[in-house]
């Protein structure tokens, strides 16, 4: 996200409450104690409530802090300095809002009444963002995932995703937006973008959310991985035969060498000064491993403060954002005859939905273009790459959100929350879904729709992370962190991929 947009958004951050539950008398490990500096309410098994206005410290067996304990009926109260973990049903941590209208919002929530979520807490890894579906003859087809990896308000971003849908019989476009992960989603705005184009043209989004219409697509002349092996066949068609980093390459990973790359050679038309590289790709679960295991899991309860407090401060948030931007995603470089020069950077798009993108690169050697795609090892699954000899940038027709439906009921409050990119957000919890309805004008011309989704989300801190932290400090952005993630991903990717799909939270 453009920092000129990101920084003012800090001023609009909503307050958050962090809730976690089912603290059990299991040893956290030698890395504890953990300090939570936001105000906390602890709800005890006997119905009493303890208020820690200045936060608390979580130890392996108890929480400590200056608190007041109130009985079930609130008729009695007494000062307390510690509570055994096994007497706690759940705790809430509160933080102040900077924003006005909707000052409080739930960011990490696990309620006793949501049995489904409680049951899934220990294992669920599905994430990370709202998923978008469209109805196709009674079947919900995945279309996109919105604002992936926007894990705190300061990282709020706007994603534009190409949709492969047809309009409903009444001409409307209906998209079902689901929260299928253990996350709280804050959706600021949804818009439908329409691009009209010729029948032989394809409309795509570029790495900066701009829109292109491309034509005259050609297959690659040759593609090789960093070992020099020919991998051209993997990119020939949209067929599920995808590129992934070779196991041998991953085994050679070391702290100073964590990248994979692919060298592409493609024809360029005579006289052209640029062409568009067309990719269909999605992230692997390496990024999910980095987020869940290393960023949030390793610090355990410290992640409550990291997400709830540190990431709302400009300095720490920018440090994470800059590292993430530079280290993850994909660099696109062009060979000028002597060396590769980076000309574009593609952000991570998420591990759930395939994304179709086009990246314009200069033609610096007559008749052909040589491009290098560089990325952290195994960060991507790439299904197809082609080169479009013709392209033009286009401005879409913006179709505003017309209605939000929850089941059969229209929800004007939700509509108002997502109509404009402002301080109002629609907040959804795991298992929730709604339908966004748009009314594009009728047209006989070929056209492609895109969904522009702006927002952010916060991860729920899993009980398993609280029980077994591995680090004695919050997340520190570094190549060491990426190396740890890569090592764990390499060892567990088969089981993780199966678990990822299996732990999708059913919507209701």
């Amino acid at each position: 996200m453009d920092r000129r947009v990101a920084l003012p958004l800090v001023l609009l951050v909503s307050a958050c409450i962090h809730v976690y539950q089912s603290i059990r008398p299991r040893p956290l490990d030698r890395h504890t104690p953990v300090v939570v500096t936001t105000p906390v309410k602890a709800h005890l098994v006997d119905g009493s409530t303890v208020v820690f206005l200045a936060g608390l410290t979580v130890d392996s067996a108890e929480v400590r802090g200056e608190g007041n304990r109130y009985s079930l009926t609130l008729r009695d109260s007494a000062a307390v300095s510690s509570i055994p973990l096994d007497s706690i049903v759940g705790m809430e941590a509160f933080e102040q809002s900077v924003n006005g209208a909707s000052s409080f919002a739930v960011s990490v929530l696990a309620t006793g009444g949501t049995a489904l979520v409680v049951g899934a807490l220990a294992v669920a890894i599905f994430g990370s963002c709202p998923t978008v579906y469209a109805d196709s003859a009674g079947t919900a087809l995945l279309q996109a995932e919105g604002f992936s990896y926007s894990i705190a308000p300061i990282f709020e971003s706007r994603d534009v995703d190409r949709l492969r849908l047809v309009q409903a019989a009444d001409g409307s476009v209906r998209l079902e937006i689901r929260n299928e992960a253990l996350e709280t989603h804050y959706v600021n705005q949804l818009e439908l973008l329409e691009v009209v184009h010729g029948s032989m043209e394809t409309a795509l989004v570029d790495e900066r959310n701009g829109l292109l219409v491309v034509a005259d697509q050609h297959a690659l002349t040759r593609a090789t991985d960093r070992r020099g092996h020919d991998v051209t066949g993997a990119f020939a068609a949209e067929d599920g035969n995808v590129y992934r980093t070779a196991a041998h390459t991953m085994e050679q990973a070391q702290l100073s060498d964590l990248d994979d790359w692919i060298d592409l050679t493609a024809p360029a038309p005579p006289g052209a000064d640029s062409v568009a590289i067309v990719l269909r790709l999605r992230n692997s679960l390496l990024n999910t491993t980095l987020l869940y295991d290393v960023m949030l899991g390793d610090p355990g309860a410290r992640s409550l403060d990291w997400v709830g407090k540190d990431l709302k401060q400009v300095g720490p948030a920018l440090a994470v954002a800059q590292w993430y931007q530079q280290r993850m995603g994909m660099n696109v470089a062009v060979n000028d005859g002597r060396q590769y020069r980076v000309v574009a950077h593609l952000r991570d798009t998420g591990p759930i939905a395939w994304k179709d993108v086009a990246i314009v690169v200069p033609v610096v050697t007559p008749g052909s273009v040589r491009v290098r795609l560089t990325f952290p090892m195994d960060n991507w699954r790439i299904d197809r790459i082609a080169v479009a000899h013709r392209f033009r940038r286009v401005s879409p027709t913006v179709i505003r959100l017309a209605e939000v439906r929850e089941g059969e009921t229209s929800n004007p409050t939700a509509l108002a929350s997502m109509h404009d990119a402002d301080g109002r957000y629609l907040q959804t919890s795991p298992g929730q879904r709604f339908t966004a309805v748009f009314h594009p004008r009728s047209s006989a011309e070929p056209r492609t729709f895109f969904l522009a989704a702006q927002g952010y989300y916060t991860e729920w801190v899993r009980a398993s992370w609280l029980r077994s932290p591995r680090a004695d400090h919050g997340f520190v952005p570094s190549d060491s962190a990426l190396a740890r993630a890569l090592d764990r991903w390499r060892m567990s990717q088969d089981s993780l991929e199966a678990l990822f799909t299996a732990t999708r939270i059913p919507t209701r």
Partner: protein
Amino acid sequence: MRAYIAVAGALLFAACYHGPSIYTFDPVRRPTGVDADLRLEKQRVSGELLEVQDSALIVLTDSKRVVSVPLRAIRAGLFAKLGTLLIEGWEPHSALAKLRSFSRFPFGLTPELRARLLAAYGQTELEVVR
């Protein structure tokens, strides 16, 4: 960049603060739940929000009765410093998720605790108000 951070920081400090503050909002500072004002068809229920259930709100009324108010009976639900979150005909799920965190018992009550709470107010069962 530094200049921009400085400007953003200045704006932050200059910003007006609205809405509930953690320094004054009772559900943060005290063990109590948020104050609720529920408008039903023929009556009004005011009191502390104790528990949010899937189809009802449990409220300790100003007259110290523990009552259950079915969601479908609520014409409008106003909550201190949070505003009107429940309106008849509107899908309540999002509002309930928010309200649950500001109830006195966000993690619910076991039957035993509920019985003890009722007994404290001279009741043996929840009084349903429609």
